[in-house]
């Protein structure tokens, strides 16, 4: 059995990085790790092609450089499609859990200044406009500041 050393090194690096990323807490890193491990496995299947054992289509007369073992290629194609589908689902899952975590922060608590604004306290308006001009590069129109929901 002859296997290309480059492929083996690439596979080992992919496995190492993939496993490292899959052990992280963040789901996005887990997804990237899963993709790396998946591709490392695909490389492994490709490397398993050829003479060792007796591959189904090998009749013993063809030399190794004249032939290509079709079965691992078919297996890898299937594995790629499955990895693709699963990562699409994972992306949707990550997006959903991101949305859920955002929803928690979207629930604004009662803001004392806000209530005062609605009641028509002009002093608070002036104070707020001042502070936004200091902290933000965006221009805040004076009239709109009071009418924001």
């Amino acid at each position, binding site marked *: 059995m002859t296997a290309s050393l480059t492929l083996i090194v690439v596979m080992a690096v992919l496995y190492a990085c993939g496993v490292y990323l899959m052990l992280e807490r963040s789901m996005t890193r887990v997804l990237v790790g*899963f993709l790396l491990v998946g591709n490392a*496995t695909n490389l*492994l299947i490709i490397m398993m092609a050829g003479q060792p054992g007796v591959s189904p289509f090998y009749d013993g007369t063809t030399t190794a450089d004249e032939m290509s073992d079709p079965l691992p290629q078919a297996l890898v194609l*299937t594995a790629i499609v499955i990895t693709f589908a*699963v990562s699409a689902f994972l992306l949707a899952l990550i997006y959903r859990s991101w949305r859920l975590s955002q929803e928690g922060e979207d629930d604004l608590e009662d803001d004392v200044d806000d209530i005062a604004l609605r009641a028509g306290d002009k002093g608070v308006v002036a104070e707020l406009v001042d502070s936004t001009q200091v902290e933000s590069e965006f221009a805040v129109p004076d009239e709109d500041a009071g009418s924001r929901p």
Partner: protein
Amino acid sequence: MTPTSLVPLVVILPLLGAASALILSRRPGAQRLATIAALVAVLVVGCILLYTVQTSGPLAMEVGGWAAPFGIVLVVDLLSALMVVVSAVVLLAVLLFSVGQGLADGDHETPVSIFYPTYLILTAGVLNAFIAGDLFNLYVGFEILLVASYVLITLGGTEQRIRAGTTYIVVSLVSSMIFLVSIALIYGALGTVNIADISRRMSEIPADVQVLLHVMLLIAFGIKAAVFPLSFWLPDSYPTAPAPVTAVFAGLLTKVGVYSIIRAETVIFPGPELNVPLMVVALLTMVVGVLGAVAQADIKRLLSFTLVSHIGYMILGVSLGTADGTSAATYYIVHHIIVQTTLFLAAGLIERVGGTTSINKLGGLLAASPILAAMFLIPALNLGGIPPFSGFLGKLALFQATAEQQSPLGYVLIGAGALVSLLTLYALVRVWSLAFWRSADEVDGYESELLRNVTEAPNATAVQQRRRMPRLMLAATGGMVLVGIALTVFAGPLFALSDIVGENLESPAIYVDLVFPSGGADD
């Protein structure tokens, strides 16, 4: 038309059903009918296959007409046919249960237009795994059922389900990857992925490589079957899903893993190298699982832990490596699929009647619904192994097969098995006496030895509004209870069947001859 051409229908029918259910997603009535029709058709085909296999021997279907080592084979022997029929019964009952739930609740909780097609795809995956004659096809079957189960376990996308689903999905991804790597290594070592061909060539490779491949396959299947050190994910992820989804996952998905372990132990690696480690694993699975169950207050979590614990009995049967052991394991798998699903369906009904599944808050259910009480008590006693029921018969057969070996470890396992069934009974009878027997006005400030050391489920939800039980849900659960009783009534023929399964499995040559009738094309 020969019976062989019926074999692929087991996978094609649910997939066609899924497609039509997706097309009909705007017409809920037609969608429900299409889904039920597809599953009824699968059940009929399964019964015909079982009858054919029993009368005229196992079937091997070469897909596309390509002969065995080159093409894909679908193999239906007695074990596969039995599993297909039992799965179809369970899937149909759970489907009727969820149809009843959907009709009653107006489908507010979950997007049901997605539920039915996904459910049928899950069916296709499970059945494909049961009839696969090819390791890679088995992998594809696993992936189909896993992707469908990812969608089902996160159905509705609430925060709790996303969190539980994430654990489940990441663990499943790892197990699939290990499975794929072991397929690659098997192909590298043997030059084939056909199970029968692997079985023929396995003796040609060095023993240490065999052990490596064997262990990798067992780890991949062990995660799916929730065998002890690899079972941590199950009690955290199953209970949060909707009741019918949990029921079908508990009944079938782990059993697909156990089925694969049986195939691996009998056809691919028939030798006894790993039997003792497997027995130890079976022991730990039984004991650790049931100890978890005893500490739970939430009925669904409790049932998930007993599920893990009873996987141990099946692994014990497989690990013996004798025809009697495999036969007892087969009967036990059939029993456990039916009973565990019934219990989870009953837990779904308890949640409707009582508004919660925590035994700290439930009470007076016997007065509220005597029929539900009966539908919980019968499968509970069955799982605990009370004599007339199939749980007792299955355990007895397992213990007999273990005792035949006369090894010290075997006797330890028999003792542990008896203890575990007592503890299962304790956990379930406690649910009975608190949730059903205790009256509703006793619940507040109730003090008892029974409630000591019991923990609530993490992020347990508040008591919900009590809802009535639709007739269809009751009928589906009641039907499953009757099927469970039928396992006792027809225990004789079923044991005769599982004895043949055991004998066939312990001589792998039968499986190989089935796939290569003329002794193989390439030799």
